[in-house]
């Protein structure tokens, strides 16, 4: 039997990871993700959890072929820097039909997907990824 993926380390963060919960600083007003113990901009510990917008625009992106162990079946991995308005985040991108379809300012939205699986018998990590928006607003 072998379990490579941590049970508790993921479980502890599920709220943040599933719901895109960021932190807003009550002192300087800036939002960051994922929430840290104090504001990375001003050091204030007065933070409140905020659900981040689930739609944003690609600022930059990459198609990754140097694939870490366990993810060959998801290769290539698409990965982007996303402007959510209130803050920026990096996330895996999915449902990308081919690398050339990625464009700066492309609109993307969050959806739940598998990222890591612990071989055949261990845990599955479900994390929000971003995909091209289904319906333009």
């Amino acid at each position: 039997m072998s379990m490579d993926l941590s049970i508790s380390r993921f479980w502890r963060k599920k709220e943040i990871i599933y719901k895109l919960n960021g932190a807003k600083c009550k002192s300087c007003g800036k939002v960051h993700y994922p929430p840290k113990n104090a504001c990375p901009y001003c050091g204030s510990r007065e933070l409140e959890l905020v659900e981040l917008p689930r739609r944003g625009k690609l600022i930059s992106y990459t198609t990754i072929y140097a694939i870490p162990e366990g993810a060959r079946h998801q290769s290539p991995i698409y990965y982007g820097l996303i402007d959510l308005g209130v803050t920026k985040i990096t996330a895996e991108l999915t449902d990308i039909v081919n690398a050339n379809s990625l464009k700066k300012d492309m609109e993307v939205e969050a959806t739940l997907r598998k990222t890591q699986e612990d071989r055949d018998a261990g845990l599955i990590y479900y994390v929000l990824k971003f995909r091209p928006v289904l319906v333009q607003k």
Partner: protein
Amino acid sequence: MATPKAGIHGWGAYIPIYRLPLSDIAKIWGWHPDQYKGLAVESKAIAGPDEDSLTMGYEAAYNAIKRSKIEPKKISAIFFGTESKPYAVKPSATIIGEALGITPFTMASDLEFACRAASEGMRSLIGMAASGLIDYGLAIGSDTAQANPGDVLEFTAASGAAAFVIGRTSNASAIIEDSVTFVTDTPDFWRRASQPYPLHGEGFTGEPAYFYHIENAVKALLERNGLKPSDFDYAIFHQPNGKFPVKVGQDLGFNMDQMKDGLVTPMIGNTYNASALMGLARVLDKAKPGQKILLAPFGSGAGSDAYLITVTDEVENRKPLAPTVEDYLNRKVLIDYASYAKSRSIIHVIK
């Protein structure tokens, strides 16, 4: 005794982006090129390598909750109907519930009854909502639809999900006026524990299973409500292929005009637990206030439900709140058998 009634508050669907042309399956497995023509399906929807029944069910449920206009925390029962659970033991319903912000004060379980588990969830929610045990409940049907590679079943086994928020009748998009369930021990299709794919009795899945159960459920519903097929605007049946639902509908006295909007399988294949329910989602995307819908899901093993549903004025307010089935149908990219085999773990890999 008055029939307990409940309301459909929100509906949602999900179809993955990938489509496999059935001609590819015929070519790989040496079927005659016309073998699948009788199934009336041209391509099937395939979940991507990072998708499973849980992620698809999540998105369908996300859409259903959006349309219900309620806070996720108001949902106090989640029934996840699937025959392709990511975990054999460990509820997918709790993961979906947590990810949607529903937990912790909620019932949550994964149901199994081949393709009608989610429908069993809906019937349970009707009673729970009507009795006041819950305000709102979520029923999700989702499958990545396994089939033994090379089996005729592989032509139609597809991936997709549909979900419904069910609650009391007030302010609902549609009212479930009545429902009937008809089950027997009929071994037409099964998957033994620890086996990756189901087996089936070919022609035995037809007359003694699909047709017998759906016809009995629908007839019972019509009879006890004093209705005839022409009283309905829409009729939706479980759709293992493009042919069966049309035949059972015609046998029961429905016409193509009533059935065409609820037929999704010809475009994307059989999404098992989402099969008839996605038909209902598509019909609700289009239906007008006051229209009447007959819904008849079926599950092997075997059983069928028949629902009498009336659309309310509220439906118009809910339609624009989430993507429609059509939006998902229109988003598609063709893949080949090799990509499908990889993303559905048909290729043996050492992990």
